[in-house]
């Protein structure tokens, strides 16, 4: 009996997670008056006006483009430099490798808030302020360590015999790496991309600090609107609902890899 109840725990948990998401969607199709005027389980005055505002006003939709831009650059960059590093950690033992690996991970533990001020000054100094590159670079701080760690875990599961056979067969290192090794750990790359995407997409503080107008992320636009015009809850809900879409697309592609479980590297 007890077992029968606990079997439904994941289901209860999903319901707990879905209620706020339903409410977000629910509000996004309501007028702000309806949200503030009463408790309604579904929109009585169904409206697309909130979405129409966002999708036609460049000061809104530019925010999505900006965010996607830096998240994309960051993900590509982080995984690209993490791949060779993870390979080195997984295949070779060298003096101080454990310390280097731990140092790498400490970067993931550095709170972004700590970096808000110095990165502002540094990126202004080199002329990257208010570009997607600034945010993308700043976010590599926590995404490279994570990517190295995830990829190292996947690479650990690939027998070294694969490398050795390839080298015996006369493959050069780059040819082996791109033609054989990368396809072998495609699942790991997918999972690493997912986590890089996730942490870069939800981060606000650094993204807000490093941009002003041209590269402003959607989250910063939301805070500005909220404080400038009182709470236009319908509009904010629509904007929030739209931020779920890119993530949902990404997770759709990697769902099986994540469900299968991802190996994680040594620590």
């Amino acid at each position, binding site marked *: 009996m007890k077992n029968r109840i606990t079997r439904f725990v994941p289901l209860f948990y999903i319901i707990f997670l879905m209620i706020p998401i339903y409410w977000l969607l629910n509000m996004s199709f309501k007028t702000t008056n309806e949200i503030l005027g009463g408790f309604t389980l579904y929109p009585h005055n169904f409206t697309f006006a909130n979405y129409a505002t966002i999708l036609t006003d460049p000061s809104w939709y530019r925010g999505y483009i900006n965010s996607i831009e830096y998240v994309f650059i960051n993900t590509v960059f982080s995984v690209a430099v993490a791949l060779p590093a993870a390979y080195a950690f997984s295949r070779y033992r060298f003096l101080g490798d454990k310390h280097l690996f731990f140092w790498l991970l400490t970067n993931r533990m550095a709170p972004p*808030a700590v970096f808000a001020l110095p990165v502002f000054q540094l990126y202004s100094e080199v002329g990257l302020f208010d570009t997607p590159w600034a945010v993308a670079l700043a976010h590599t701080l926590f995404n490279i360590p994570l990517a190295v760690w995830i990829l190292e875990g996947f690479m650990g599961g690939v027998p070294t015999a694969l490398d050795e056979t390839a080298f015996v067969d006369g493959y050069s290192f780059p040819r082996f790496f791109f033609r054989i090794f990368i396809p072998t750990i495609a699942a790991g790359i997918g999972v690493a991309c997912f986590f890089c995407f996730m942490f870069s997409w939800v981060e606000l503080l650094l993204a807000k600090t490093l941009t002003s107008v041209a590269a402003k992320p959607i989250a910063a636009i939301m805070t500005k609107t909220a404080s400038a015009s009182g709470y236009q809850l319908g509009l904010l809900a629509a904007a929030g609902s739209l931020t779920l879409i890119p993530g949902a697309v990404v997770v759709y592609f990697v769902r099986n890899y994540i469900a299968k479980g991802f190996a994680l590297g040594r620590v």
Partner: protein
Amino acid sequence: MISRAQTFGLLAPAVLLLIATGVIPLALVFFYSTHENFGSEFFFVGVQWYQEALLSPDFQFNVLRSLLFSGLALGVEMPLGLFIALRLPREGRLTSVLVVLMVLPLLTPNIVVAYLFKALSLPLYGPLTWMASWLGWDFNLNHVFSAWFLLIVMDCWHWTSLIVLFAHAGLKAIPEEYYRAAAVDAATPWGVFRFVQWPRLKLMLGIAAILRFMDSFMIYAEPLVTTHGGPKNATTFVARAFVQTKKTQFELGYGSAVSVFCFMIVLVFAFALFKLTTRQEHRA
């Protein structure tokens, strides 16, 4: 095989990039934290800013509140996440569907979560307030308990799935044979958990706990939007305090000293947890 020089060549891009984005900014923060500035001129002041921060009761309470918040958030999220992961089917279509649904909160930007929960807890017509009053509870963000309750529920909603994912990954790494061997030995469910699952899970949970500790200790946007740090200062945490002070040029040193101090707390916690999880592994 590749040579030692090539090994370092493989590591170089990642290491150099992390030096540029991590080590240099951190060095700069450390420099500010030990200097006073007038315009662009800097004077060395030693530990003055640290003293000022650590001796101020405001700051002390902020740190204590942040620690309490992290403690409560992790205290709910870790056991809950672990429990759900243990109940999650090992594989199959259902698992994929559940994973996609569970991951949605993780992909919601902090600020969206903050506005969403603000809307959920609107006076009168927010569903949370509505449900609370149905249960006979006067849910009101002007009460300390309600404000904390909201922040904890919000954090659990947002991040428990991360623990589930990590624990699930740890469980999947256990070969099927281990379970069969345990069944042959007629192990109790507790025995299976303690001697088959826990040794593999511990490290994953440790890492998840470090990630969650760091993010919850530095929580910023959520209390700012939902409770404005109130009632009074009941939900003001460290990140808010030093982001505020850093905005004004005059408090550059003070803000930096607070930053360095917070980084230290996170590092000490991470290192302790790391030692704890890896040390037991050698013994087991």
